[in-house]
């Protein structure tokens, strides 16, 4: 295949990818996370982490789209747990706010979990 043929092939592939891009914007509905466990649930922090945080920070807190939290890293970054709770409540950068979807007790539980059990 000559160079012009390669260019045409890549252009066709890009056209296809652009069409898929537009289509997926509308048909790829985000999966809804499971309901937040109620206060008093055993391992409340772990349950909330699994349902609300793991998709970005990794199921074991090893990072992904969001930064690594496990291994004591988050406690090093936020020596005061209140600062970390504020981040969860208010959001930071690409991280959304959870103030409207988690109660202060739930936020405290998931923060404690990331600091002590990940």
């Amino acid at each position: 295949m000559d160079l012009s043929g390669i260019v045409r092939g890549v252009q066709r592939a890009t056209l296809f990818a652009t069409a898929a891009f537009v289509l997926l914007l509308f048909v790829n509905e985000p999966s809804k996370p499971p309901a937040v466990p109620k206060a008093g649930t055993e391992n409340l922090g772990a349950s909330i982490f699994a349902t609300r945080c793991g998709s970005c920070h990794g199921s074991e807190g090893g990072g992904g789209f969001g930064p690594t939290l496990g291994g004591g890293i988050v406690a090093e970054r936020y020596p005061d747990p209140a600062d970390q709770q504020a981040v969860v409540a208010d959001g930071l950068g690409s991280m959304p706010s959870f103030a409207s979807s988690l109660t202060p007790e739930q936020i405290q539980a998931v923060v404690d979990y990331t600091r002590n059990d990940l």
Partner: protein
Amino acid sequence: MLVAVGGGAAVAILLGVYGREHDPAGQALFTLGFSGTINMKAWLASVALALGVGQVVLALRLYGKIGSSPPPVWLGPVHRLAGTLALLVSLPVAYHCLWSLGFETDAGQARRYFHSLFGCAFYGAFVVKVMCVRSRRMPGWALPVVGGFVFALIIGLWLTSSLWFFQNSGFPSF
């Protein structure tokens, strides 16, 4: 020219409206072997920037601004290939931005705000550039000007995303 600019503006506005109105998924995507979606995005954006730099250099050669001999015949196809590949590698990045994060409307979040604006403008400007390339009725200055605008937007996008990422997560952060 007006038709091209109108088409590009429509694309940019539609992307912005989607990003603003669509409920952000807040979810990661595939990683293409990188350690995370954001790492993949930072690197794909860097590849797009590199291809953009290559396109500008090749364009300068095509226009006789670099070198004194006539440009080789393969230069035009390679120039088009670089531009097409830049668009191709940008698509997963833009998809995640629009689908998962949405359009930042708070000007106080300057980096995200300008990144959102640059991102929508980039695809609009790209449409204008393609229409300039395809049309025989464009003024001679149109293509270099629009091409320069597209390149400036790539730089703006990279500075407000990949550079920020590498500064915060370290380099190379695969």
